[in-house]
């Protein structure tokens, strides 16, 4: 009898650890279902020759899928396109974003038009941005060629040659992501106390010196956050090149995410596509780990 009462008491008044476990359990189960299980299944699939078009039987092939990926020029091309597009668009977006943030931080009387202009590209769906810029760069009907012709330069087919198609995709990515970076940097700028600038002015610092000695160092934490977000998003680049060029001409603008999409959704080659996805996952992990180490050091 006494034991039972104790049991009930323990249930009614659980220790702190039990309570913590009980309260965390629903979230843990949910995460396991929607994160751990799919990732586990993906890794598992990567070891089978699993095809949507291949009927029911899917033989175990060990590391074959990974081996074919590592021997495939198209895979390495996609890795190169993904990494280079990420670097170029991140640096570009950081520079443009910083300029936009400084502009938006100027003491205008009416601030909302500037802020709205900052928000709009960010709020626009990626696929829209891709389609809009595809029209801008269209050979026959695009505004880019229209401007060129007005100043007497011959129009060209932007999305048909590898170099210019690549550049067009990068420009679109910079346009699309600069405003997000600007928002983060703007928040950072507003955290810098006015008094620091006043002190710098008393010391006779020019505007440029103020920017270099006060603004930039205090902005570094925001810049790092912006870089992390942008790099991870950059590695996942899909929508914009998909809507602008479909990865073409040939494979000049095909990113890893697009190659995975083509392999799994179009070819129905789930096994090989999963192996590609695992490799892309590893790439993201490496990059994220590098950033995390940098943050911990700071």
């Amino acid at each position, binding site marked *: 009898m006494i034991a039972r009462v104790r049991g009930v008491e323990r249930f009614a008044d659980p220790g702190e650890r039990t309570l913590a476990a009980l309260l965390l359990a629903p979230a843990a189960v949910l995460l396991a279902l929607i994160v751990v299980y799919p990732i586990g299944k993906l890794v598992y699939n990567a070891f089978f020759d699993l*095809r*949507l*078009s*291949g*009927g*029911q039987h899917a033989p175990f092939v060990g590391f074959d899928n990974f081996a074919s990926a590592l021997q495939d020029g198209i895979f390495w091309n996609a890795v190169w396109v993904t990494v280079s597009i990420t670097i170029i668009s991140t640096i570009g977006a950081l520079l443009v974003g910083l300029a936009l943030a400084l502009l938006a931080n100027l003491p205008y009387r009416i601030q909302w038009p500037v802020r709205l202009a900052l928000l709009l590209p960010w709020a626009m769906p990626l696929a829209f941005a891709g389609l809009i810029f595809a029209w801008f760069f*269209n*050979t*026959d009907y695009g505004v880019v060629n229209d401007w060129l012709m007005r100043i007497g330069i011959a129009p060209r*087919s932007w*999305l*048909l*040659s*590898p170099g210019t198609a690549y550049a067009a995709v990068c420009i679109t990515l910079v346009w699309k992501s600069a405003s997000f970076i600007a928002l983060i940097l703007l928040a950072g700028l507003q955290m810098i106390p006015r008094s620091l600038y006043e002190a710098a002015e008393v010391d006779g610092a020019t505007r440029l010196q103020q920017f270099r000695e006060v603004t930039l160092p205090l902005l570094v934490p925001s810049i790092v956050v912006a870089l992390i977000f942008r790099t991870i998003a950059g590695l996942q680049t899909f929508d914009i090149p998909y809507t602008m060029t*479909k*990865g*073409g*001409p*040939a*494979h*000049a603008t095909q990113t890893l995410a697009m190659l995975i999409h*083509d392999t799994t*959704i*179009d*070819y*129905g*080659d789930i096994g090989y596509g999963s192996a590609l996805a695992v490799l892309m996952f590893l790439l993201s992990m490496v990059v994220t780990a590098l950033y995390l180490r940098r943050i911990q050091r700071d």
Partner: protein
Amino acid sequence: MNTCTRFLTLAAAVVSLAAVPPALADTVLRVFAGGPQQRTDLTRKMFDEYEKSHPGVKINLESGGATSELQRQYLSTVLGAKDSSLDVLILDIINPAQYYAAGWIEPLNGYLGVKDAKAYMSKYLPAYATADVIDGKVVALPDFADAMFLYYRKDLLDKYGVRPPTTWNDLATVSEKIQQGEKNPNLQGLSFQGAPIEGAVCTFLLPYWSQGKDYQKGVKLDKKAAVNGLDMWLGMVDKGVAKKNIAEVKTGDTVNEFMAGHVVFAINWGFAWDLFQTDAKSKVKGNVGVAKLPAMQGGQPVTCIGGWQWSVSAFSKNKAEAAKLVQFMSSPDVSKYLSINGSLLPVYANVYSDPAVLKVNPWYGLALPVVESAKSRPVTERYAEVSDVVRTQTSAALARVQKPEATVDEIDNRLSRAMR
């Protein structure tokens, strides 16, 4: 009545409405009927007829996907998940082989009482016995046929006293003559599909086939003939007959530019006729001629077969009812209706000579032999891969990103496994 009671009454009304079943014994068939190019408007009218003559059957039409590739992506997702929400599907002619191999579509032999599949399919045009019969099983029935034709501006050809060309070289000569005579820098001699879309697979194969070559499972790509074909298209660009950015041109671009009067010759599918003749935007009404596609020098004229099929999903819960609908949609009456109202090519040879059909489509006399001798793109369960490689590489060659030789090598290498 206070707000609370009013709300409760409203809620009760909504619930009771939603709970009323659509007559107890109704079978509801959900049909994926494709996009605007498959004329879902006409399909819906046929479904209305079917509902009238089959009380107890309701048909929900689902449409979407402007291109064959987009539809394939959508259906791959639904069927890959073994989703039972679709009963009947419309499929491009290139897809039944893959879908059957994947176990996504139901063999119809049992439902149609088929003993000999080839014999059963002999009432249709010959191409469909190849595309829709796999391992002796009827896996789909044709809705409408399609093939590529050469559309031309009758008024311009008459003005310069020339006849529709029979070889690609002829076409270039005639175009140059008309383009020079018209002195209109925006007038293109020839528009064809160079963008990396499904149509570009036909662009690659047309001049190749014309040299008497084939490309199927177990039939190796003849590299020399394939390079000749790409060189022929690039020659059209060099001569100024086709525009420089031909690698951007999709099926719809050719239609729109021909309709606007900017094109002398256009390669396109049969459905374009209806648009040229009846679309409000068309500036070429009454001036459109149709001919067989030209041949390579010393080769045979040949075209690419297309067309759409009805299939029953392997995951449907109403397969028997679905099969009946498929049979109806593939009947001579529907074929006739579609050709009169949408100039969609009939899948029965005798409908081509039906007077009512010929009145709307006077060129059908010419169309029948073209469709009967049209060639099939590679029939394989890995067609999606074949198509992707061929169209991406062809478009890159037309964009001059790579030489024709390198293009053909790349196609041959990449597809060696899929085409084995």
